[in-house]
């Protein structure tokens, strides 16, 4: 029997929805093109109340895709299987409520999932009622290589993870949210945070400042999280120091290296990390959007369980709220 082709729509035609496709070499680089390229999905419509963005999207997307300035009209006319929510964060909750009214089978919501914890809880409840699958686009959860690292951490391949450290730019909610989520994906829940603001690291959104923080995970792992100025360069890195091996993820998640041990050349009887022979994982130029689209298809086919649920998005939001509270109290520890 021929497999079902899922109808997809994207609401929000800004950078992440459509426009950055022309700027990035790693493609697909947007929600719209991810669903255009996937053989099991068909991009049927996009919507944006911002007419300028909608017109730009019209020039980029192929014939056959329908354009709407009103999201509800799109839902009424198209009845899509998959809808991407790629509007600014303040609009996520209301839009998810609308999508659940139309019983959208799968909703991919950009991160962070909401402005407040209450909104996030409402979104989860609305999706449960309508039986919509709610996925948060913390997209590194969908990437095979980064998922493999998580699986190997869980299996204990690297030993017990003693420490981890991460670097990010452009706001604790904007990009920092991805790091928090990936740490949770790999290490489980965070027990407490201590954070200090870093006002030298500029952000697009002035309200979304950067912080440097230390986290204690429930499994005992200690993590530091450091922020840099986006005007200098873009960075997203995570390093895990296990008792048997270390893992270094660089280049926004594209370069993954596993570093084993060798006898120490300085301390007799001890070991050290062997940086000369790292094991590399995953090909370069992997598109996280491609992986996202495939993940949604596999979830709708019921082949896999969703890897990035509303509950995961809510948990990341709670951590961000705790970080903010600590940063506004000069680094006082906040238990989650």
């Amino acid at each position, binding site marked *: 029997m021929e497999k079902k082709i899922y109808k997809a729509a994207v609401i929000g035609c800004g950078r992440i929805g459509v426009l950055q496709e022309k700027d*990035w070499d790693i493609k697909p680089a947007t929600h719209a093109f991810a669903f255009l390229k996937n053989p099991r999905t068909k991009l049927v419509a996009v919507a944006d109340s911002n007419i300028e963005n909608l017109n730009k999207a019209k020039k980029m997307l192929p014939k056959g895709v329908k354009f709407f300035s009103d999201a509800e009209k799109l839902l009424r006319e198209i009845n899509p299987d998959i809808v991407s929510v790629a509007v600014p964060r303040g609009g996520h909750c209301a839009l998810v409520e609308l999508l659940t009214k139309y019983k959208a089978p799968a909703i991919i919501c950009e991160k962070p999932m909401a402005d407040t914890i209450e909104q996030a809880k409402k979104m989860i409840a609305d999706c449960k009622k309508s039986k919509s699958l709610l996925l948060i686009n913390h997209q590194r959860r969908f990437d095979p290589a980064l998922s493999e690292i998580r699986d190997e951490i869980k299996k204990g391949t690297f030993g017990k993870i003693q420490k981890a450290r991460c670097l990010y730019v452009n706001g604790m909610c904007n990009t920092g949210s991805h790091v928090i989520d990936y740490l949770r994906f790999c290490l489980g829940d965070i027990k407490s945070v201590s954070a*200090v603001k870093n006002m030298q690291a500029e952000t697009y959104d002035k309200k979304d400042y950067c912080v440097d923080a230390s986290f204690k995970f429930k499994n005992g792992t200690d993590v530091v999280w*450091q922020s840099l100025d986006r005007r*200098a360069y873009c960075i997203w890195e995570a390093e895990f120091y296990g008792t048997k091996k270390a893992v270094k993820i660089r*280049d926004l998640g594209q370069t993954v290296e596993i570093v084993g041990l060798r006898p120490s*050349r300085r301390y007799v009887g*001890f070991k050290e990390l062997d940086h000369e022979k790292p094991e590399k994982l995953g090909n370069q130029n992997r598109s996280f959007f491609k992986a996202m689209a495939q993940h949604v298809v596999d979830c709708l086919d019921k082949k896999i369980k969703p890897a990035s649920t509303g509950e995961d998005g809510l948990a990341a939001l709670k951590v961000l709220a705790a970080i903010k509270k600590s940063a506004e109290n000069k*680094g006082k520890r906040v238990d989650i």
Partner: protein
Amino acid sequence: MTKKYTAAVIGCGRIGMKMELDPKRSHPATHVGAWLNNPRTELVALADPNPASKEVAAQVAPGVPMYSSAEELFAAVKPDIVSIATILEGHYPVVMAAAKAGVKAIVCEKPIAESVEQGLEMIDACKKSGSLLIINHFRRFDPVLNQWAQKVRGGLIGDIQQITGTYSIGLYHMGTHLIDFIRMFAGDIDWVMGKQNTRAHTAIPGDTCVDAIMGMRSGARAAIQSLNVKDYSNFEVRFLGTKGSVCVRDMGRGIEYIPVQESKQYGGFCELHPDKLEYHENPYFAKMTSMTDYVVACLDGTVENGSKGEDGLAVLRVLMALKMSGEADGSTVVV
């Protein structure tokens, strides 16, 4: 004719002399071995209260007289150079005795002292006696690491934004090297927020491991983390500037430099891409000969002492702040 300097070692334990007998180490591995090995120095005396040290000395430095205390040694000989390789408690009295004896160059193991007050007195006594006080944070003597520190301070990677560092074996053992190294590249540390890491093994009784976020005077931030040496040892420091990054890894054996470049993958962005990584091996790393060459050059007047008592004292202040913050569950402590 080039002058030959006389040298003595006070404290003949592991770093003073014993590790010279370890066949697995590269030699010279100790103060005694280093002064014996340097063509510009003559080892003239040793001191250690432990009678067993005499047997080791007979193998490592045959014919060099061994005294049971610093006082005995200084009563008998007036060396140009003294290495102080006693336990921490011995640093203060022996430096004071060496300064009183008019020793020209005093190489003191790290950390400088047990307290800031002791450190201040030691610095003052050396100034009054005209003695050079050199703290053995040995990476300061390494010519390759010094070049990289100069490049970073000179703006190779722009303004430093963040520093990351890992260490093991305790704050007062390897942590002191890490703090000194951060200062060497990036200047003073103003405040710390530390958390004790009780799972990481320490070598010195009473020492502790602390993880911390620190504020640099420049406005940059640093985060240090401690690992359990029973799993593996690690000393790695990365400086992330606005124009690139420099990572000193493998204890100081290798340096990775990545310049900022326009992203090939993401239009409109710059990045630190691993494809642009330049790796530089450091052939001088951790050789005790670097220390003795450096001290000789200081005495010759060709090099200015770059590991002063004041540097050692600044490190001690940070170590004490880290310990205090760690004991207070991460409260901010101003250095």
